[in-house]
């Protein structure tokens, strides 16, 4: 069993490092370390604006989110690898031929994810903070406590993701019920002045009881998800109605209706339509909204809506990952299609998916009583999203999910996106309607996308 764990760790490392070179990947923790360290040096400057408590809250919330995303992605990666490299290519699959139960394999998988991302993300972050702490007037005990509480936040997110996806695998209705219950519990606790987010409570006031409770939450969620795990393919519908032709007819205004129809079918049948919307869109945006609401007192009127719209745009641009994650160029390579053709069709499917952020922002604007600024918020969100897509397409071609782990590419991505984003946010703080200036990004994005098509058409496609 321990051998399986070690082999899975090696596999995870190889999958990531072969994608973009071990050195490049090894730089990732260094990057996080550097960002955390530099960020911590700024704490004395930020303090008057944002109390230390709020900063702690945001950091813990971010690690919770990180855990959720890693968990969701970890479960998907099996499917992704199977897709890209053929069946039984990951150990989680191959191990089924060994005399080990499905639960043992899954347990190994969970532990592997935990250890792997702990070393890669949590540890470098805290180390960066610890290095800067003495200079920022923070007692050295704080980083030690932070290591504990951030790890717990991360683990809570991770086990929550496993738990929710196991519930989802059982029944969608059950997932809805559990989600409503959870949201209800959090809300009531919030009204009653009790925080259910124990790692943060622990950070604010350390006590062994809270520590035990926080650990218990993680363990219970993990135990529940292992208990809920159902051996593969128990309840899979075997026969499917032909959907490609009718869908393609409906999508006929697009340049490659059949390919767009295929993307839709992939999203529906892989379960990512629901899963991704929840884990990669609604939950992250929920956390972001929550963090932003702390900033509200410091923002100009309507500032929070526009800031949120811009960030929603960034999150929405990652929908390109949804469209590419189950796809490799393999099946297309037999057809008279170039890489650019496939990329173009993905961009079209992406455009269709943008209905989701558009509806979401509209809903948020109305609920926040900001309907008057719906238009600039929408324009800002969609322009940022399209521009983000363009940058992703240019930098990563058809494999954004793996390449965004490459620190060099990531830095380029952040720079390309960050600069115009900051400018636009400043503009829209001056006057909400200035946010409409973001349409310029659509033009720039168009140009970048075309460059991207040319760039990737000239490359040999790996992964078949």
């Amino acid at each position, binding site marked *: 069993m321990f051998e399986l764990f070690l082999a899975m760790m090696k596999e995870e490392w190889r999958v990531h490092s072969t994608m973009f070179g071990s050195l490049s990947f090894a730089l990732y923790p260094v990057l996080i370390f550097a960002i955390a360290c530099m960020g911590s040096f700024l704490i004395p400057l930020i303090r008057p604006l944002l109390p230390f408590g709020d900063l702690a809250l945001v950091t813990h919330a971010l690690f919770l989110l990180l855990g959720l995303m890693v968990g969701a992605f970890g479960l998907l990666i099996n499917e992704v690898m*199977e*897709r890209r490299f*053929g069946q039984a290519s990951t150990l989680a699959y191959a191990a089924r031929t060994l005399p080990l139960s499905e639960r043992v394999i899954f347990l190994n998988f969970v532990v592997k994810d935990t250890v792997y991302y702990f070393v890669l993300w949590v540890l470098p972050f805290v180390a960066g903070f610890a290095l800067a702490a003495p200079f920022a007037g923070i007692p050295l005990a704080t980083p030690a406590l932070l290591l504990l509480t951030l790890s717990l936040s991360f683990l809570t997110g991770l086990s929550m993701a496993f738990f929710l996806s196991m519930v989802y695998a059982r029944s969608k209705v059950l997932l809805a019920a559990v989600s409503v219950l959870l949201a209800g519990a959090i809300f009531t606790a919030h009204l009653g002045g009790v925080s259910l987010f124990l790692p943060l409570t622990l950070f604010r006031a350390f006590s062994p009881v809270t520590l035990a409770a926080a650990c218990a939450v993680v363990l219970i969620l993990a135990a529940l998800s292992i208990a809920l795990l159902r051996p593969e393919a128990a309840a*899979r519908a*075997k*026969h*499917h*109605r*032909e*959907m*490609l*032709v009718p869908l*393609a007819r409906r999508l006929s205004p697009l340049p*490659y*209706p*059949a*390919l767009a*129809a*295929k993307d839709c*079918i*992939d999203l529906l*049948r*892989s379960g990512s339509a629901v899963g991704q919307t929840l884990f990669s869109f609604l939950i992250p945006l929920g956390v972001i909204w929550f963090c932003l609401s702390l900033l509200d007192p410091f923002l100009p009127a309507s500032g929070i809506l526009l800031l949120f719209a811009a960030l929603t745009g960034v999150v929405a641009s990652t929908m390109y990952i949804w469209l590419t994650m*189950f*796809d*490799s160029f*393999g*099946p297309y*390579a*037999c*057809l*008279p*299609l*170039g890489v650019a*053709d496939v990329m173009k069709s993905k961009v079209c499917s992406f455009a269709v998916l943008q209905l989701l952020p558009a509806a979401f922002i509209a809903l948020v604007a109305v609920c926040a009583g900001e309907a008057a600024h719906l238009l600039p918020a929408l324009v800002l969100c969609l322009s940022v999203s399209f521009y983000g897509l363009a940058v992703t397409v240019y930098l990563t071609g058809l494999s954004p999910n793996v390449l965004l782990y490459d620190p060099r590419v990531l830095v380029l991505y952040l720079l390309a996106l960050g600069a115009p984003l900051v400018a636009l946010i400043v503009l829209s703080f001056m006057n909400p309607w200035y946010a409409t200036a973001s349409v310029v990004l659509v033009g720039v994005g168009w140009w970048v996308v075309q460059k991207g098509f040319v760039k990737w058409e000239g490359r*040999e*496609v790996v992964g*078949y």
Partner: protein
Amino acid sequence: MRCEHPPGSGDACVTAILDVRDLTKVYGDTTALDNVTLSVEEGALFGLLGPNGSGKTTMIKSLTGQVRPSGGSATVLGRDVVADPVGVRSQVGIIPEQETPPSFLTSEEYLHLVGAIRKIPDIEEQMTWWFEYLEFGEKRDVLCKDLSRGTRQKLMFAQAFLHRPVLALIDEPLINFDPIMQEKVKDFLADYVKKGNTIFISTHILEIAEEICSGFAVLHKGKLLSTGRVADVTEGGMHLGDYFLSLVRAGGHV
């Protein structure tokens, strides 16, 4: 196709449907193809033979524009594979080594997708014919990822021939089929060639190559060891298998 010789130069004009000149492909420190020169005539059932890792798959991928040669050139149906890979793929049918139809489409949807991209007008009839011929109609509404390997291979066969290409390139055509299906597919290939089309297969099953192929080439460690007509080998009373082994053993010591 273009004739290599000027008209009236005396030599009989052999129409090469596939022409490879000094083709080289290097992956990192592996030379998968090493200066291979090869040509295949129209109407041939050509077998590319070689041990594991000799470069057969790399050759087929280069000929269909899926990998970019490191040196040399190749034309397929008169089109340069580097300059016009999509043009080449629009004319030929391809069955890759790893049968990878899109996981979440059903067999039927996959063939519809191919039909839409290749703009095949009689896709329904073609599809029905293939479902019947390869006997997998009852799997038409099953997701590709839930198909057995053999059925996936059947599906890949169907997708490659839907548009009735004049040239088909097949990497290991029979490896996942049961003996009955193998016979059926061999018959189909022989018949397809008789109609004037060309088929290029790669295999290391030499009995099959001897049985169905008209021309052959032997690759070993990326180098072309021999190329010619199968009949020329077998007429001397030799089996293609023995010939292959003697070549490869000798080649292995070069």
